[in-house]
């Protein structure tokens, strides 16, 4: 199925359709309600909407799923952001005594944006992405997901495509939601290795001892490095590119590098690989013999290691784009990413709002006729129809992913309850 052409001008027509028949409200509410364990958790959550003509409204909150639906169908927001769970209903925050209205909890979030890598990618810049540089996102997700799970012990991390040029991570564990600003900032710092802005040339500096986290992260980077950096990004392919790499090296190595560059000036795959192999043998062995020089690792990390915006992760009240919201510029839906198929994820295959609206108009297949009969008695007509609707579109598999994620969380919650009540949990 070809991706229908998306035009931002058609949003006013597409959004109502999207919110009426496709947006997975039931799952969405199930997520943010977190099993109803904490009173008013959903009711005290802040949402913000960006409406047509860039009108931005904050402190939206809803008492029930139904209210959320009605409001979204009425306003047809271009963008939806999710904020924190506050001490009071956000839409009543003006009535609360000043100082009492406070952000209490929120998922721990990360935002990886491709523009932060502009200094190390040669294929695109700015808001553009392509399959070659998308690998950076793959690397980022692998490294961060591993760290969040293994090092920090978080189990419920939802990775979402932002819709244009990056990915977001929502860490939904209870412990994560309760983290203080200081804790979030500490986690973000722990995960940061690339530091410095435009004026900094050498953005990764390693020293003894090399922490296990860095070793683990490097293993991931090394898996992708040849294919991504040497081939795809061609970081040794032109004099300019090589100079950029050389700029990261200590002086004594520079001399050696210059020599090899002269020898291998010809641009070809063979020479690239040869260069790499050479770099790996000649200097690098010499260098590892020399204590304190980790430049090989530093170069790889500078070109590939995830760059996250600490400020996004720090604030408890920070607003972040909601999963399943539309990206107005590209029309793409912010869909969850399947980590089991991570290497195959293609941002250009993510359904756009125009595509899925078009898919809605397709005639029903036989399968669906049968499903209809089965589900007749189960739920209200409206909901039935809605459930059927997104299932007929490319959105289906992403909603399923989301369902699985929610199911795991529910399972965990049950496990906690059993554990706390002292009963033995027989599930593996």
């Amino acid at each position, binding site marked *: 199925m070809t991706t229908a052409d998306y035009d931002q001008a058609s949003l006013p027509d597409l959004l109502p359709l999207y919110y009426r028949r496709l947006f997975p409200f039931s799952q969405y509410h199930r997520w943010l309600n977190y099993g109803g364990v904490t009173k008013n958790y959903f009711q005290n959550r802040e949402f913000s909407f960006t409406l047509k003509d860039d009108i931005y409204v904050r402190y939206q909150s809803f008492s029930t799923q139904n209210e959320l639906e009605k409001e979204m169908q009425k306003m047809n927001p271009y963008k939806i952001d999710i904020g924190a769970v506050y001490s009071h209903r956000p839409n009543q925050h003006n009535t609360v005594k000043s100082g009492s209205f406070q952000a209490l909890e929120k998922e721990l979030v990360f935002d990886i944006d491709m523009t932060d890598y502009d200094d190390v990618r040669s294929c695109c810049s700015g808001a553009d992405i392509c399959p070659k540089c998308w690998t950076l996102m793959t690397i980022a997700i692998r490294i961060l997901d591993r760290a969040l799970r293994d090092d920090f*012990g978080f189990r419920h991390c939802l990775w979402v495509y932002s819709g244009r040029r990056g990915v977001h991570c929502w860490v939904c564990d209870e412990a994560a939601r309760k983290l203080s600003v200081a804790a979030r900032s500490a986690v973000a710092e722990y995960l940061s290795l690339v530091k410095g802005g435009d004026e900094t040339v050498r953005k990764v500096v390693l020293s003894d001892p090399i922490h296990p986290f860095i*070793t683990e992260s490097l293993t991931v980077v090394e898996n992708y490095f040849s294919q991504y950096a040497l081939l795809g990004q061609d970081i040794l392919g032109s004099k300019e590119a090589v100079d950029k790499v050389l700029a990261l090296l200590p002086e004594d190595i520079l001399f050696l590098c210059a020599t090899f560059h002269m020898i291998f000036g010809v641009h070809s795959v063979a020479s690239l690989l040869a260069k790499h192999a050479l770099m790996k043998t000649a200097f690098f062995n010499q260098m590892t013999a020399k204590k304190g020089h980790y430049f090989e690792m530093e170069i790889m990390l500078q070109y590939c290691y995830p760059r996250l915006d600490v400020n996004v992760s720090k604030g408890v009240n920070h607003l972040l784009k909601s999963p399943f919201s539309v990206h107005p510029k590209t029309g793409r839906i912010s869909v969850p990413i399947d980590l089991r198929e991570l290497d195959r994820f293609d941002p250009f295959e993510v359904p756009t709002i125009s595509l899925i609206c078009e898919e809605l108009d397709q005639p029903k297949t036989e399968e669906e006729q049968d499903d209809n009969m089965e589900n007749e008695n189960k739920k209200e007509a409206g909901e039935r129809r809605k459930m059927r609707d997104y299932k007929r579109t490319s959105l289906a598999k992403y909603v399923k992913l989301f369902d699985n994620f929610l199911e795991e969380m529910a399972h965990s919650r049950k496990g906690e309850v059993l554990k706390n009540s002292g009963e033995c949990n027989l599930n593996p």
Partner: protein
Amino acid sequence: MQFYSRRKKLIGNSQTEQLYGHCLQFYGQPPIENISLSEFETFAVDRLKLLKTVENLGVSYVKTSELYTKKLDAEEFLPGLNVRNCETDEYEKRRKDHISHFILRLAYCQTEDLRRWFIQQEIDLFRYRFNDLPSKNIGQFLQYNNLHYHTISIDEKKKLMDKLVTSSFAVSGSTVDGKDFYKVPFQDALDLVRTRKVYLNGGYVYIPHQDIVTIVLNDFRTRLSKALALTARSLPAVQSDERLQPLLNHLSHAYVGQDYSIQKSIGKISLEQIDPLSAKSYPLCMRQLHRGLRDSHHLRHGGRMQYGLFLKGIGLTLDQALQFWRSEFVKGKVDADKFDKAYAYSIRHMFGKEGKRTDYTPYSCMKVILSNPPSQGDQHGCPFRHSDPELLKQKLQSYKVSPSGISQILELVKGMHYQLACQKYFELTHSVRTDSGFSLNHPNQYFMESQKLLGGPGAGVKVEVKREDNPATKPPNPSPHQTPGPGNLPQEVAAEITEDLDSFFQDA
């Protein structure tokens, strides 16, 4: 938090055992029993003395060094409050430790400065005690206080050996073998996580023993900080108790030591001696006040109180004081009549001859530093605390303090150790070392110590001051009106020594 309650309550033995089950505590629960007012005061004063000692030692020595520990061990108050030994019962000491802490909370919760000081000393004291605990008592302590930091088994250590060694700069293979490692939730060790100085796995960090102290201390600091804020809110109720209010006020403004209200050298100072004395034996604050008075022939109320009481403390009689102030004010805009009407009364008041006849005590350093900060046009206060550092530097330069001495003083000021800065000023202007001598708490003490060194009339009671053997420390030229006594030198010798002194300052 429930503050000190004076309701009667029967405490059974088991309850007290539980309350003081461990020799070291976080002071989470306030004491609930009756004590007499005198015990109340004694406990508080003893602990205050201890904390002041902790403060002094803390600036002079590195807090974890052996020398520091030895010095603190030797402190006389410590045995009374000494709760380091977990083996013996020592119920009384633990009780005293507990109660005295809570009383001082009442006195030190009121202002940011007081709270900060109190927290700092209590933390240092806690660290000193904690470091002294044997390993098993640490485990007990953690458990007792619901700190879920468990040590990891030897097997686990073996398994994690590589990881532990590569995570931490200070950890080697032998450290892992020899020391205990604690498993701590990462939220309790944020600084270590942030800088990646520790091994993190499954949400837990693995911390070697020496770092556990930092974590426990941070915990203590947070708790104490919160508790003090809460105490401050309950304070009005406590202060309305007449028996407690004067005590608490005294504690928070007190230093512990002499209050110099009894002047042993009364009448021994003549008015003509004041000028030279101000240059030689006055602490900087009083020198500033005296200078201000001489220059503008006037001082505002705060300055009159601080300086006036000081003069009383060094031995001026009421008549002398009246004469002194009148002669100066009259040179200014005040005529004799107005002086008698407006200012004489307040001077007599200071000497306890008016109103409720309280014989006011000269202000201690604490009082000068903490209360009544000077504003535009005022000369009172503590120059180390209240003067802009640049101005302070200029002043010290004009008083011929050596550049290295000035930077030492400014360092102390930056660290908010105002009394130590003054002490350093004393050392530099008298060319002695006082670290084995007195600990400065009161302007009149400064004066007395100075006079003792110089063999002057204001010396009063004899107190031991060790001096280094150094030709530059011989007493310089004493005041010309002095009665002959020990330490007086003939003019020529004195002049020679003064020269040496000058060159000493210039070379430094």
